[in-house]
C-alpha cells in the first residue's frame, strides 16, 4: 500500500531558514531596538516558526500512519471474517480522518501556512522600501526572506498534495467499506433464503405426513 510521504526537505529548509534568521537577529537587534521595533521583529518570524513546528508534528503522525496502514493491509489480507475486516477498515478510516483533519483547507495548519506566507510576502514588500539598512544588509535580509517565502510556498503546496492524497485514501477506504457492507447484506439475504428453503422443506414434510395420515384413514367397513 502507498504510504504518504511529506516533503522533508522543504520543511527542513523552512526550519533552517527560520533559525538562520533568528541567529541573524542579534547584530541587527541593537538597531532595531534603537528604532523601538523589537516586538515587531519577534512577530515577523513567529508565524513561520509556528507553521514549521506544526508541520513537524504532522510529519511524525505521517510516519505512524504509514506503519499502521502496512499492518492493517496485511491484517485485512488475512481476514475472512467480514466483521473483523470492516472493523479494521473503520479504524483505518478513523486514523486517516485524523490526519486529513489536520490538513484541511479550514484547519489550523493550512491557516498557519497562509498566515506565514502572507507574513513573508508582506515582509519582503516592507524591506524593499526600507531605508534603515545598508544596501548589503538590505540585500541579505531580502534574500533570506525571499528564500523563506519560496520554502513556505513549497511547504504549502506539499500540504495541498498531502490533502489530496488523504482525501483520495479516505474515499478508497469508504468504497471498500461500502463494498464489504454490500457483501454482508448479500450474506444476510442468502441466510434469509436458506431459512425460507428450510421452512419450505419442513412444510412439505408436514404436508406429506398429513397426506399419509389422511391416506391411512379408512372409513368403517371399507
Amino acid at each position: 500500500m502507498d504510504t504518504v510521504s511529506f516533503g522533508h526537505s522543504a520543511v527542513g529548509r523552512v526550519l533552517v531558514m527560520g533559525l538562520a534568521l533568528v541567529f541573524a537577529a542579534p547584530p541587527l537587534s541593537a538597531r532595531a531596538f534603537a528604532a523601538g521595533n523589537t516586538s515587531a521583529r519577534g512577530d515577523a518570524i513567529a508565524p513561520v516558526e509556528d507553521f514549521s513546528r506544526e508541520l513537524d508534528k504532522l510529519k511524525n503522525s505521517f510516519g505512524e500512519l504509514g506503519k499502521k496502514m502496512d499492518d492493517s493491509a496485511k491484517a485485512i489480507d488475512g481476514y475472512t471474517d467480514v466483521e473483523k475486516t470492516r472493523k479494521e477498515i473503520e479504524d483505518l478510516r478513523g486514523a486517516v480522518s485524523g490526519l486529513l483533519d489536520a490538513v484541511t483547507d479550514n484547519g489550523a495548519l493550512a491557516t498557519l501556512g497562509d498566515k506565514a506566507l502572507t507574513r513573508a510576502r508582506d515582509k519582503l514588500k516592507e524591506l524593499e522600501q526600507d531605508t534603515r539598512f545598508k544596501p548589503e544588509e538590505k540585500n541579505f535580509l531580502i534574500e533570506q526572506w525571499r528564500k523563506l517565502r519560496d520554502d513556505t510556498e513549497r511547504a504549502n503546496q506539499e500540504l495541498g498534495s498531502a490533502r489530496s492524497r488523504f482525501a483520495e485514501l479516505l474515499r478508497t477506504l469508504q468504497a471498500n467499506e461500502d463494498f464489504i457492507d454490500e457483501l454482508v447484506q448479500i450474506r444476510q439475504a442468502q441466510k434469509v433464503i436458506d431459512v425460507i428453503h428450510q421452512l419450505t422443506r419442513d412444510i412439505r414434510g408436514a404436508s406429506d405426513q398429513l397426506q399419509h395420515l389422511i391416506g391411512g384413514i379408512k372409513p368403517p367397513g371399507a
Partner: protein
Amino acid sequence: MDARRLPFCALWIAMLAACTPKDVGFVEIKTFPVATPATMLYLDSVKLEPLKSGSAVLRQQVGTAKLAVEAGGGQMALLCDIVVRKNRITTVTISLLERPPRCQCRNTAVVEPPAVRSCIG
C-alpha cells in the same frame, strides 16, 4: 453525595460534554471550470475562502449542510444539501457552466420527498 453539590456536578458534566470534540466529517468541493475569486460559496451560511485551484477539502460537523452560492444582488441560491458522516468524505462538483450553477454529487442520497439534490459520502 451532598445534595448541595449536585447542581455543581451537573454543571461540571455539562461543561465536560460541551468540551468534548463533536464528530466531524469532510466535504470536498470542486468547481468546474475553476472558480474565480468572484464566485462566493457558502457552506451552512459560512462564507468559504476562495478555492485554491478550484478545489477545497473542509472539515465539517456531522449532519446535513447546505451549499449555496451568492447570486446577483447579494441573494443566496441554494445549490444542494451535503450529508456529512463521521470520518467520511462527501465530494461534490459544482458545474459553473450551467445557469444557475449545479451540484454534481459523486454519490447522491435518496431523500423523501425529493426536494433539493442531496450529496452523500
